[in-house]
């Protein structure tokens, strides 16, 4: 069924309503932020009020990836793999300063923001963010998903396909002695994808 028939638009609305009110988060918790994430799902802040309490540790069963904590270069391939394993549609929340930008770890083993390897939809600042901050971030994501109409054939999917297809345009980035390697990273990633592909074939 294609086009804007009464049935499809209504179904889209229904699906959107259901999706945005029951995100299943995958907490990719590595450090201090993971402890604050525990607070968010515990009794006091109780994210179940919004319908987001079904925490799943399997990427196959979840639709938002909450990256809570510092991601090091050693963890990078793991995070990338987890992201790739999640089914569409999927969204990413970057929780805390380290995941957003490396935070105050401007160091030899710390990734300077997870957007070096995966796309991010919502950045939640703080070190760690307060639980209210994370809840606000999830609600922002909810609004965004509602805004992006027809997401299944739409922008989100297109964007992810572009990212998967090849290296993004080199970004204008001033703090970039470490990010200068980004193009290398993409290149390596591309070869790796190729490798995986041929392996599968």
């Amino acid at each position, binding site marked *: 069924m294609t086009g804007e028939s009464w049935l499809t638009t209504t179904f889209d609305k229904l699906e959107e309503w259901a999706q945005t009110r029951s995100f299943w988060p995958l907490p990719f918790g590595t450090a201090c932020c993971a402890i604050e994430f525990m607070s968010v799902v515990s009794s006091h802040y109780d994210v179940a009020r919004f319908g987001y309490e079904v925490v799943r540790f399997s990427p196959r069963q979840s639709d938002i990836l909450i990256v809570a*904590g510092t991601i090091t270069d050693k*963890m990078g391939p793991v995070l990338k793999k987890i992201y790739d394993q999640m089914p569409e549609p999927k969204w990413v929340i970057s929780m805390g300063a380290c995941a957003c930008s490396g935070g105050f770890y401007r*160091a*030899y083993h710390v990734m300077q923001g997870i957007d070096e390897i995966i796309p991010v939809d919502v950045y939640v600042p703080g070190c760690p963010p307060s639980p209210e901050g994370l809840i606000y971030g999830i609600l922002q994501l909810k609004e965004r998903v509602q805004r992006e109409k027809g997401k299944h054939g739409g922008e989100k999917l297109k964007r992810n396909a572009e990212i998967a297809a090849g290296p993004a345009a080199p970004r204008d980035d001033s703090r970039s002695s470490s990010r200068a390697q980004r193009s290398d990273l993409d290149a390596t990633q591309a070869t790796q994808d190729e490798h995986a592909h041929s392996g599968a074939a």
Partner: protein
Amino acid sequence: MPTLAPPEPLLEKHRGSITPQEGLDQPCWIVDRSVLREVCADLKSNPQTRFDLLLECFGMDFPDRDPRFEAVYHLYSIRHGKRLRLKVPLPESDPTVPSLVPVWKAANWFEREMWDHFGFRAEGHPDLRRILCHDAFQGHPLRKDYDPARRWICTEKDMYKPKFDLPERPEDMFERMTINIGPSHPAMHGTFRLTAVLDGEVIVASDVEIGYLHRCFDKMSETHTWNQVIPYTDRLNYCSALINNVGYCKTVEKMLGIEAPPKAVWARTVLSEFSRIMDHCVCNGTTLVDCGGITNFWYMFQPREEIYGLLEACFGARLTVSGCRVGGLLADLPPDFMARARKLLEIIPPFINDMESLVDHNRIWLDRAVGIAAVSGEQAIDWGWTGPCLRASGVGYDVRKAFPYDLYDTVDWEVPVFQGGDVHDRYRVRMAEIRQSLRIIEQLLDRGIPEGPHIVDDPHVALPPKDKAYNQMEAMIYHFKLIMDGIQVPAGERYGFVEGGNGELGFYCVSDGSGKPYRVRVRPPCFPIFSTFSQMIQGHTISDAVISLGGLNVIAGELER
């Protein structure tokens, strides 16, 4: 200054190879590397010295000196309560040391770390490879000539391929299966990777890989001023951040020769104990989640939330508080501190009681925990354990009793010790410690908050109050100098230690007299504890491995720094 003369026979045997170094915070010998292993074996077995615990070993780099490198060993004798530091000079051309794994098993991971960070090769080490940095990493980052921001790309191809030392097996066994758990797995706390070979359901061999949260604490602290290091210490053991602050600030204060005012000492003791309660709560809560009891997790998390309220009122942050400053506290205590703390003393015990009534006679928990991953006291010492895990194995070493600091010798409390050394006793020792902490806090609250300032009145150490900084020229200059140049710590070295949530938390600080630390080395208590995980779980099932990891309370931020 304390010194420790080498025992006569030892000195006689290695004349010229051991030189005591005077004038340091603790006894220190400079030992030639050719005799290191022999000297250490002797120090361990000699009943006069009996240095049974290798606390840590690490490297130092002095590019201007000849020989350039130094390996440092911290030893402790539980029986005699004595400490000793050994320094082994190493030339730049050939930085090798004899491995001490035959003497203390604890040396295993520490020597791998030395290789990873400094490139010191430990001769005779069973498995010398990188431990914290990834396998595509080039160079040794803690050498002074390494650029702190120089990164190396790690791809999936560079990830560690586990190796196993597989035992022989009889013919009629099942097919062996290798499974990988983690690093992104809830039971591995998100950052450890365990690869286990199973025979049926039993683990016959396993390999543990860490370093997924190595955030370069040591290198970062060398690029910041002394006060700027405090937020980094928060993120070591983030479950009890304030204890790290206290340990670090006390060490720097001793180097400066100042003492925090009574109010700060009082508040540090009270809040450290509250932090310890938080730490033990999250450990026991998550252990029980790992064996399926999620209710207990909610029960144990609520006291944390309540304590967060107090910390937030004091310092404005919940988890990573940065509450201490060199010379005192970040801010004066809020006016309702006493009322809030008293309220906590009423709120917390019911949660603990509820939790114990749910768990203590629960057949499922007992069946899963009693006798699992049992470790004897001797083994634990050989492996370098300290803290609640060591006390669960029958050894009552607690820094707060053995080397009392702050107000611990003025209050009445006990060190809980259990004998079993299994998961169940590790749980029980933590529950008992929560009660002791409450006891300490209650006595301190009864005494009342000491009068006086919250930080020393020394413009070279503490920022002047804001109203002065805005209105007086002199205070403004001090403010500016302190922000721009930092505290000027006199040249020297010191090892300071406190009882952290997981055991002896040590800070070895070296200053060269500039405004930045030359080296801040942390003695992470869970590092030696986790290094034994592979041996502990051998012969158990995967589900046992999961709860024994929970009971060890390994905090990645502290383990990998």
